[in-house]
């Protein structure tokens, strides 16, 4: 049913992404594509993969932004983006077939691919570009929060995480229950002033982003010497000798 759950679920599973830590390596993009191509639903297809104009379906993409403060040098911020599993998900209510739904038990937004007609309206309704119509299967694909991993009793416990979180080599991605104020992720959000993307659109995203921390020292000027080396001992004697020549 494309009606949102009448009472919002207490459990709100989601991701917390630390923009201070993400190094933009795209490992989460690759692991996401790998897991979700082999598991839940239609594979994430690529079109013209080895040709002149390749494109493909991805559930997670990393944008890199440059932010210029009023004073001082700019900062580069790598910005992973996937479904935010919004509480007031506009992608769910627009669906004409009931394929798009939000789970009452844990708040995950999913697509029942057998009921999807591929009209694309949910992708239009999403402000975040979290949904992509697979060009081979003709059905809408989106982040499932690795619903086939997090409850999977056949996996070792440490693997019962979304593939992106499990893979992140920098530890920039966290998974947990954002509906529970005492969970690790909720505390992290409280400590670091976790934020919503495009709050003005009223979607109430569950996923939160932790803003980059303020720099504790000004960045070096471009092309300034990185260290002032004073050679001592034999090297120092050679240095002085060579200068005199």
């Amino acid at each position, binding site marked *: 049913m494309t*009606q949102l759950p009448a009472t919002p679920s207490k459990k709100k599973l989601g991701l917390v992404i630390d923009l201070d830590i993400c190094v933009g390596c795209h490992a989460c993009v690759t692991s996401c594509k790998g897991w979700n191509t082999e598991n839940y639903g239609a594979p994430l297809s690529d079109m013209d993969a080895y040709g002149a104009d390749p494109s493909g379906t991805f559930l997670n993409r990393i944008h*890199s932004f440059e*932010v210029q403060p009023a004073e001082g040098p700019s900062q580069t911020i790598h910005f992973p983006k996937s479904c935010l599993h919004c509480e007031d998900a506009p992608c769910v209510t*627009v669906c004409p077939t009931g*394929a798009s739904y939000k789970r009452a038990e844990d708040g995950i937004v999913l697509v029942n691919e057998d009921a999807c007609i591929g009209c694309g309206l949910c992708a*239009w309704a999403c402000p975040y*570009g979290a949904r992509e119509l697979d060009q081979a299967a003709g059905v809408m694909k989106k982040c499932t929060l690795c619903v086939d991993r997090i409850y999977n009793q056949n996996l070792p416990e440490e693997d019962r995480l979304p593939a992106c979180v499990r893979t992140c080599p920098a530890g920039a991605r966290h998974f947990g229950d954002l509906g529970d104020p005492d969970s690790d992720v909720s505390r992290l959000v409280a400590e670091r002033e976790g934020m919503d993307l495009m709050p003005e659109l009223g979607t109430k995203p569950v996923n939160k982003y932790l803003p980059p921390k303020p720099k504790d020292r000004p960045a070096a000027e471009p092309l300034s010497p990185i260290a002032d080396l004073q050679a001592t001992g034999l090297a120092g004697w050679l240095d002085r000798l060579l200068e005199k020549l």
Partner: protein
Amino acid sequence: MHPAPSVIVFTVLSGLGLGFLAYLGLGFLRPSGVYAFLIYGLAYGFAVAGLLASTLHLGNPQRALRAFTQWRTSWLSREAWTSVATLLVMAPAALLAIFAGFPSATFGFPGALLALATVFCTSMIYAQLKTVPRWNHWTTPALFLLFALTGGAILSAQAGLAAALCVLLGLLLIFSYRLGDGRFAERGSTMETATGLGRIGKVRLYEPPHTGTNYLMREMIHLVARKHSARLRVISVLFAAVLPAVTLLILPLSVATVALALAFHLIGAFAARWLFFAEAEHVVGLYYGAR
């Protein structure tokens, strides 16, 4: 937004056909016999051709019947219901006109109401989207309904009424173009709010997620249009509103006059609808440093 031909053809033709059905249902035109067969055939032809065109952009059209299930929340589902209901309710009216030779208010009035409700539902599919600020406004349903009513009036050979509606349509088009240009800024979404990085400073895209394109960019970021938009706006107002009104008022009313006015109107309607999509900017473009 990508101006997909199937969606442009769908909205223009189904709007025209449904508008015409509304006038037939209300008895503005009271054809009978073979003439009624042709007239209703024309109205049904436009409406059905448009609705069929709408299935062309579906990824899995064989499941289209499922679109009838979610009328509680989805305007697309409501449109499915009202369009089928219109075609079914107007059918007895058409049959009575063809075989019995008299108009039927019993089926015609509800049919007319359903026809306009269908156009309204179609427009709300676009108008409901907060993500596309230009569409998310009362002018969207107003434009769709006025296009249907104007096209229907031209086809029903109501010269005076059609000319009056043309004037309204022209004014509304100009108003919506003017207003639409500022809607994105009014909504307040920027690269800063999209990334939450506005608290640090001004944001620009340093590197996109991939070197190629993707579904989102093809579907929602359309850049070619804006060069020609000024010219197309003039063309749309001229052809959709001014020329049909002048044609109907100056030339003696005949099938040829109506056909000429309709041809002008359709050219303008296609131009306006193309602009409706091509000029609409989706907020997701902000993540790609584009609009």
